[in-house]
């Protein structure tokens, strides 16, 4: 019986392929190596979005080709070249981090193939490029959100910033925050440099305790941020702590335990308050498929790179025309994505809202939405 069904499906599949064109879309993601965890959740979104919407309006099917870049630049370059010259993809989704995405864009831009980045927030990523796009906000926007929220809503005037020298994300966000915080009348009393992989922050936190700032801004990823939170509590340092989307995951709460209670961070969206109809549907489908409805932001943004692309392709008379796709991506206005409403600009940057969450009783709880 089962065999029969399989046979029937394959026949049906064959039939569709026969009439409609197949258009290839590439994805470059770190599925192994040090960034694998992030790459996997992001690709989960792309893959799931493809499953929901595998065909275009005109009946053409989309074939998704994933290349693992191991989080490595050489592999990213080879993979991107392969996707463009050998697989002939019309667009590329990826490649997670800002450094690797920059590598993908450098190659794709020359070949006039649009790239949509999911979570690469570095400001310069899309500058001086024609075919670079992203669905996430930029570092400057996120930095401003945190600075304004701290100054105006929480009334915090002095800050210590801890920056991870080894992470592009951390450097960019720290810089943007400092600029916005100073502009708003706040004072950065100290900037402390750390390196990812560090575990012992006892010296750092005792220094901060002596300085006694109003709050701490930690534009870090979860391993370092959680350790700092723990060691702060150990020495009785209980100033408010704020991070960016780098800690927006359950692992952060697991690692931090009780010490991250009250910890605030910015995120792209919140699954408990779906911003659009599309996110409601997506979360429902996702829950049905995986049995969990806690949709990770990275998964949502991964899905949005795909949906935004399909939306742009549908508006092109020839959906395999990369130049038209690029133009249409940049022309997307009021696009209802899984992670929220996205407005694209000419530079390829997304104007979108951010949400602020606070960790309460071991859960990230939605606090407010900040619109641009």
């Amino acid at each position, binding site marked *: 019986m089962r065999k029969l069904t399989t046979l029937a499906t394959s026949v049906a599949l064959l039939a569709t392929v026969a009439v409609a064109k197949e258009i290839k879309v590439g994805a470059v993601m770190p599925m192994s190596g040090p960034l694998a965890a992030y790459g996997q959740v992001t690709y989960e979104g792309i893959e799931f979005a493809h499953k929901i919407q595998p065909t275009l309006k005109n009946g053409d099917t989309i074939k998704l080709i994933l290349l693992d870049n191991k989080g490595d630049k050489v592999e990213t370059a080879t993979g991107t070249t392969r996707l463009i010259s050998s697989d002939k993809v019309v667009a590329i989704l990826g490649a997670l981090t800002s450094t690797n995405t920059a590598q993908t864009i450098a190659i794709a831009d020359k070949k006039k193939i649009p790239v949509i980045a999911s979570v690469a927030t570095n400001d310069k990523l899309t500058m001086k490029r024609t075919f670079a796009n992203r669905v996430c906000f930029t570092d400057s926007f996120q930095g401003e959100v945190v600075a304004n929220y701290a100054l105006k809503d929480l009334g915090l005037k002095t800050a210590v910033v801890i920056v991870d020298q080894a992470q592009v994300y951390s450097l960019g966000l720290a810089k943007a925050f400092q600029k916005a915080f100073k502009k708003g009348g706040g004072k950065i009393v100290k900037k402390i440099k750390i390196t990812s992989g560090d575990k012992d922050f006892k010296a750092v936190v005792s220094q901060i305790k002596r300085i006694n700032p109003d709050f701490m801004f930690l534009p870090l990823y979860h391993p370092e941020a959680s350790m700092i939170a723990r060691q702060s509590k150990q020495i009785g340092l209980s100033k408010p702590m704020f991070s960016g989307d780098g800690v927006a995951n359950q*692992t952060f709460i697991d*690692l931090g335990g009780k010490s991250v209670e009250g910890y605030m961070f910015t995120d792209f969206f919140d699954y408990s308050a779906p911003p659009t109809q599309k996110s409601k549907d997506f979360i429902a489908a996702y829950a049905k498929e995986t049995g969990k409805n806690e949709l990770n932001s990275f998964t949502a943004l991964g899905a949005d790179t795909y949906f935004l692309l399909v939306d742009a392709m549908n508006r092109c008379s020839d959906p395999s025309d990369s130049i038209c796709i690029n133009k249409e991506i940049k022309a997307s206005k009021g696009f209802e994505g899984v992670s929220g409403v996205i407005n694209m600009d000419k530079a390829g940057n997304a104007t979108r809202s951010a949400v602020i969450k606070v960790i309460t009783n071991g859960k990230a709880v939605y606090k407010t939405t900040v619109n641009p």
Partner: protein
Amino acid sequence: MDFLEFTQQLVNGFSLGSMYALIAIGYTMVYGVLRLINFAHGDIMMVGAFLGYFGMAVLGLPFVAAVLLAVVGSASLGMLTDKVAYKPLRDAPKISLLITAIGISFFLENIFNVLFGGTSRAFPVPEYMEYIINAGGIIFTVASLMVPIVTLMLLAMILWVLYKTKYGMAIRALAFDVNTVNLMGIDANRIIMIVFGMGSALAAVGGIFWAVSYPSVEPMMGVLIGLKAFAAAVVGGIGSVGGAVIGGFIIGFTEVVVVAFLPEYGGYKDAFAFVLLILVLLFKPTGILGINFDKSRF
């Protein structure tokens, strides 16, 4: 930089140094009997930490039982690597042995990465370990007090084994001259296996301490710690157990003190161990305890 703070950093450095020391002992002992830099040693530590994690988080064992599981598991893994990967190469050129060691190290890191993923997992630290003691302004957790105490106890035990037991004598003899040991009717391979077992057991304890102090475990955690522990072994005088402990403390203290008092150089924290290593090689290649290379190692 007052007295109180200095004492505080001293306490921190003591705890960090102990962990390096525990791992350095394994390097030094294996080097003593095989003249091999066992690159996989840091990863054995990682496996130890993971076993502790599984014992507590998955099997729900109490802390002490989880430690025991980690120690036994790591010791067996250490002995297994010797039997499978190093023993067949006893007569091979040394480079083959070193390449195999790197291979084992890479294998352990990546098989754990494939099986359990690269994300850090939260280590379930027992509540009492995180209890905070405030001794006149010097703040530390129960764990950071326990780490050096247990380390010194284990050190005493190792020294007792080395100097007061038959096996210890065989280990010291092996470091001195392999051929003679064989002629005396001692099974050198058995002794080497015991050395691997002991070193790996200590590494497991070090790994668990690490996970208790900084509650997260991940497949790559052993790489840098292992490298620094090796540097500690050389600084202390490779081949000497006491030297490994001294080297571990030196490296632990340097890291803590530099980060605390020269924060602008904090980014270079991981480089200190190597700078020390290179300085020692330049000026006193036999390390602090100054053991002559061609004579006894313990």
